[in-house]
């Protein structure tokens, strides 16, 4: 048993902490320890999840019961948000602000920071067996840009125009606010600054991840010995490094259009009374925006694909099926992700010829995605499956991603997209991939690594409750949205009852809202579980899931420096249930016969493999 051979770490961890004697603010606030930074990302994002979620519930109330008073909080809403003070009925303008803030917060302050910031920070150094990131100080800054950015975005509330209103996609000319005088600080300019800052944060983080993965792997760890989580984070980081700056360029230009009334995205002959110069192209912004934001949707899901692969392997006690194919599929998705951005613009007025090319490349993305799905199924095949909370969430990821991905194929077909573009079909897709995919993946990761993060076990019974409630109400909330979409219900509309052809859909809207409220409150299980277990949870053993990857070689609650022993990697990350061994797992760090990760049959000795990439 591997853990038996390890030194007891209790005392050592203590001497270690005394040794450094960092002041408290260096330990918990401006810490350079990747684990602390990871927790900071986690807490700030969960906080934003609640804000974004609360906004969503406002949206839902309005759609189900247009023009009625919002219960509970209606009477205390600020006067600018409601039709008249105390009425509790939100205005159309505020509705637009709500959906903009909901989308922006969920994407820029919840999923990206969780997927890339939290898991990137936590998993990479531990899973490659090193003490910290390559550049810890840079890492600290990559977190500390996020809270100010969040505050800046929320500060839109104090401007005259309120929050940004142009949707999370913020297409000009609507987002160029030319009717405002120059040098106005509006919700939109703050939005632009804020997103610029989080973008910079993810660039800094990603630069660090790329360097760390390539430079700091433990002795003996080839690239193809890395767990899929690390692979996925690594490739995602590359995408972020290359994609984010393009968005930043677009934001800079849009900022100038807002603040100085330049006209990068404003054409001649806009019939307005204000002064601007013309000559620009509105559709150009969409190109620049989606050049980043399509890759960004993969930034939001690839890390979770890696995590889910690890969780599935661990709890079905089986190697990941087709490890190498999985790596190539991730790389393939990442590459293709950069050449499909136009599928958001089929109806935007770009050249239809481009529509053809983007449609074909988009449909091709379904191929690496299917490879991943089938390999996950293959991983379960002949396993010995334990339904822990982490596993349940991982399975939900797989199944919900299938649904969300399939609805993606509808939209990828440009002629079909003519009708469903900008309807609730898209909203259903968004939430199936982002909530059903990313967020379930994030939950899986949290349940899986919580013991290593906090040294305590989460309460399993509550975890399951959280899962079942979430899974059921999630589907009740978002599946009917497909139907709304097929019925022609446009997205981003304040009151569907204006249209005769939408009159029959009110019942569905109501149903969705009730489910959504339940869904929102189901999240309280998660939050209370996290907070309660930090203090009162059972103490976690070193390797609670009997997993193979290196983070489980670290002490129960690793301190600065992570490991209490030298790490050498002897085999791939997924040697579960090796025949002839008593234990059904075989950690990467445990000495013994070496096995590589990616051969196709049972146990081939390492001598037959040529070590290529960066071996020591």
């Amino acid at each position, binding site marked *: 048993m591997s853990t038996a051979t390890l030194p007891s770490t209790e005392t*050592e961890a203590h*001497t*270690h902490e005394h*040794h450094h004697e960092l002041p408290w603010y260096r330990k918990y606030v401006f810490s350079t320890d990747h684990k602390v930074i990871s927790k900071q990302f986690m807490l700030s994002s969960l906080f934003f999840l609640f804000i974004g979620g609360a906004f969503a519930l406002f949206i839902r109330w309005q759609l189900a019961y247009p023009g009625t008073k919002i219960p509970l909080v209606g009477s205390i809403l600020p006067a600018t948000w409601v039709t008249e003070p105390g009425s509790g009925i939100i205005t159309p303008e505020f509705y637009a602000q709500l959906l903009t803030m909901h989308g922006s917060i969920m994407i820029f302050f919840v999923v990206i920071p969780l997927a890339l910031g939290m898991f990137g920070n936590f998993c990479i150094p531990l899973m490659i*067996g*090193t*003490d*910290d990131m*390559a*550049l810890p100080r840079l890492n600290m800054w990559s977190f500390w840009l996020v809270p100010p950015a969040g505050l800046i975005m929320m500060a839109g509330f104090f401007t005259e125009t309120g929050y940004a209103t142009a949707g999370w996609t913020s297409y000009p000319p609507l987002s160029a606010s030319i009717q405002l005088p*120059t040098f106005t600080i509006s919700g939109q300019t703050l939005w632009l600054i804020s997103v610029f800052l989080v973008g910079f944060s993810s*660039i800094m983080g*990603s*630069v*660090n991840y*790329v*360097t760390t993965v*390539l*430079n*700091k*792997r*433990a*002795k003996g760890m080839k690239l193809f010995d890395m767990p899929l989580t690390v692979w996925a984070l690594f490739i995602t980081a590359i995408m972020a*490094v*290359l*994609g*984010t*700056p*393009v*968005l*930043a*360029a*677009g934001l*800079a*230009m849009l900022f*100038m259009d807002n603040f*100085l*009334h*330049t*006209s*990068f995205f404003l054409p*001649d002959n806009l019939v307005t009374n204000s002064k601007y*110069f*013309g*000559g*620009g*192209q509105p559709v*150009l912004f969409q190109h*620049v925006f989606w*050049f980043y934001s399509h890759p960004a949707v993969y930034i939001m899901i690839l890390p979770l694909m890696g995590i889910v692969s690890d969780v599935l392997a661990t709890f079905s006690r089986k190697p990941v099926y087709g490890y190498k194919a999985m790596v190539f599929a991730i790389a393939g998705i990442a590459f293709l992700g950069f050449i499909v951005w136009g599928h958001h613009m089929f109806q935007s007025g770009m050249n239809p010829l481009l529509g053809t090319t983007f449609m074909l490349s988009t449909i091709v993305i379904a191929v690496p995605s299917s490879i991943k799905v089938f390999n996950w199924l293959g991983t379960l095949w002949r396993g010995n499956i334990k339904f822990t909370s982490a596993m349940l969430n991982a399975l939900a990821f797989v199944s919900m991603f299938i649904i969300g991905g399939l609805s993606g194929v509808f939209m990828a077909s440009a002629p079909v997209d003519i009708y469903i573009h900008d309807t609730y079909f898209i909203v259903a897709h968004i939430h199936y991939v982002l909530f059903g995919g990313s967020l379930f993946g994030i939950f899986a990761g949290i349940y899986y690594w919580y013991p290593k993060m906090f040294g305590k076990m989460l309460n399993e019974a509550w975890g399951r409750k959280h899962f079942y409630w979430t899974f059921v109400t999630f589907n009740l909330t978002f599946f009917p949205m497909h139907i709304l979409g097929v019925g022609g219900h446009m997205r981003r509309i304040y009151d569907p009852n204006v249209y005769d052809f939408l009159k029959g859909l009110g019942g569905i809207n109501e149903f969705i809202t009730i489910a959504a409220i339940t869904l929102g409150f189901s999240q309280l299980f998660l939050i209370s579980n996290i907070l309660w277990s930090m203090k009162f949870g059972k103490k976690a053993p070193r390797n609670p899931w009997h997993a193979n990857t290196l983070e489980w070689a670290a002490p129960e609650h690793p301190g*600065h*420096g*992570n*490991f*209490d*022993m*030298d*790490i050498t990697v002897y085999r791939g990350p997924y040697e579960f249930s090796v025949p002839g061994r008593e234990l059904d797992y075989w950690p990467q760090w445990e000495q013994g016969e070496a096995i590589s990760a990616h051969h196709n049959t049972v146990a081939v000795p390492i001598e037959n493999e040529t070590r290529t990439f*960066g071996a*020591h």
Partner: protein
Amino acid sequence: MSSALNLSHEPVTRVRHGKFAMWAFLASELMFFAGFFGTFIVLRNTNYAAFGEGSAQLSWPLALVNTFILIGSSLTMAMCIYHLERGNNKLFRLFMGLTIMGGFGFLIVKYLEYSSKWEHGLFPGQEHHTLFFSFYFLMTGFHALHVVGGMIPMAYMFFRSYTKRGYKHPGKVETLGLYWHFVDLMWIFIFPALYLMIPYAVAGAGAHH
């Protein structure tokens, strides 16, 4: 205890962390300017005449001077890394000083250019502003910010070299050097794109401003 462990070993790729990260960051920077150039090309093609007029109003001799300044400071930067690596603090200081002066020189010329643009009413919001000048201020502005960003650590290193121990981190200088060459490199594209490639006036596409 962690000091006894060998977790933080030699970089696997044999490229220092800082340098590696800088290259990754430069890839990012390349994409940042790629976004500007991408839109620039499109809008130049659709506002052919206006871009021609705007471009003709810029002062290419000043920009030419600036090009030489930047090339020169790139050279001195390369030199100062060379000398610091060989432990020659004096020559390091000399070349670092020259590089900083290059940066200052560049900014001064830029200031002259900008103030003449201000006088001619070419700033955003002023009457003769056109889309071309939006690009001009966008690209040269971000470039100038990059220059300033490079000069701050340079100044730090420069003043540290006056302390008793001198400045002892050739690695950091090398990393900064990469950045500085990148700034030079971007200028090598910006210079012809804005100042020299004046679109031919094409008949029929009359100017609208």
